[in-house]
């Protein structure tokens, strides 16, 4: 299991938004498939932590990933277009954005909560402790 905890993120007052999403930007999916469990303001969460509102559990995401590369050398490298006229489809392993709606979980935090950290527990079948989840940025998006 890999545990990752974010830096502190500001939370706007609940009266200013209707919906809140966590967006994992640039998730890489070229390795083994994996599952993520997300907690808010619970950096101590681990695999036996109950996934409940009391533990500030926010939900899960699962990524059906490519697995080992079975091509020749370079097969799974993401190429740049070779010319402005390159109309080949995008490489299937381009990182993507994964969104988890956390409106209810965010609203359930104690009144006056103005910032959060996000803790992610990431599991794959290999039991890896790092590099299970690789992504570029985490964004808290709220919608009025």
């Amino acid at each position, binding site marked *: 299991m890999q545990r990752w905890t974010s830096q502190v993120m500001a939370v706007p007052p609940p009266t200013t938004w209707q919906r809140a999403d966590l967006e994992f930007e640039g998730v890489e*999916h070229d390795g083994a498939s994996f599952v993520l469990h997300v907690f808010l303001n619970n950096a101590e969460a681990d695999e036996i932590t109950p996934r409940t509102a009391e533990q500030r559990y926010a939900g899960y995401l*699962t990524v059906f*990933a490519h*697995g080992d590369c079975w091509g020749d050398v370079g097969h799974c490298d993401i190429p740049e277009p070779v010319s402005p006229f390159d109309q080949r489809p995008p490489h299937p392993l381009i990182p993507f954005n*994964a969104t988890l*709606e956390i409106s209810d979980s965010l609203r359930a935090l104690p009144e006056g909560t103005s910032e959060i950290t996000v803790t992610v527990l990431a599991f794959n079948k290999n039991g890896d402790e790092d590099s299970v989840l690789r992504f570029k940025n985490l964004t808290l998006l709220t919608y009025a």
Partner: protein
Amino acid sequence: MTITAQPAPNAAPARLNIRKNIEALSAQELTDFRRAIQQAMALNDKRGFEYFAGWHGVPLGWCQHHDPLFLPWHRAYLYWLELALQSEVPGVTLPWWDWSTTGAIPSAYASAQAGGTENVLAKAPIKVFNTAPKPGWPTETSRAPGEIPQTPAPPYRQEWANAMKATNYMEFSQLIWTVHDTLHVWVGGTMGQVDWAAYDPIFFAHHANVDRAWRIWQAAHPGANPPANILGQSLQTDPAMQVRATLDVHQLGYEYAGTQSTVPGSA
């Protein structure tokens, strides 16, 4: 929601093929479907099951995931495979596995034996079309439910319900591909790897359910199409199909069986 199999007003006057829940197939329908898969597996050319399986991962890798083409590409994929199966056994359709209400792999896909022989829906050979195998390639499909710790197991009622509440295509697409990913990962084995998943016949029952979800959502959200800028995009299938050609299942000649409720009349 009930979807009745009525052709669109401007559709050709042909009977639609009806895809059914795997649990609702008659014994004969299941036998026919199994025979179609078995016969297609015996073909080592572009009519064969292994050729179609290879579209998704090894060796061709044409599938689309985690993007707006996910639903159209897989709808086209199922359409072409279903035609190939109907060439083997006329009238067969792809059944769906409703993992939104059932929590286990359906017995039609789980029983080791069927009709006194090995059940081809439970375990299938992997013979990559027109490609010499490499060391380490699996030679048959496998499943390992729960092999990834902490993976939620079906049924995925809430996830399905959340997807159905989406009000635009992009949101629906993302919610349904997420639960789709979860099912793949939960089944595990070769189903948990993009490269090998489609060699397992259960892949197509899973995706028929994903496609059914889209169909149900479409019926509730008329005109809620993929973004206009991708409608003319060609999907990488053989032959290719534009995204806009995938939007109307009646134009593709099929529908999903709905529910039926009958009450006595007055006589």
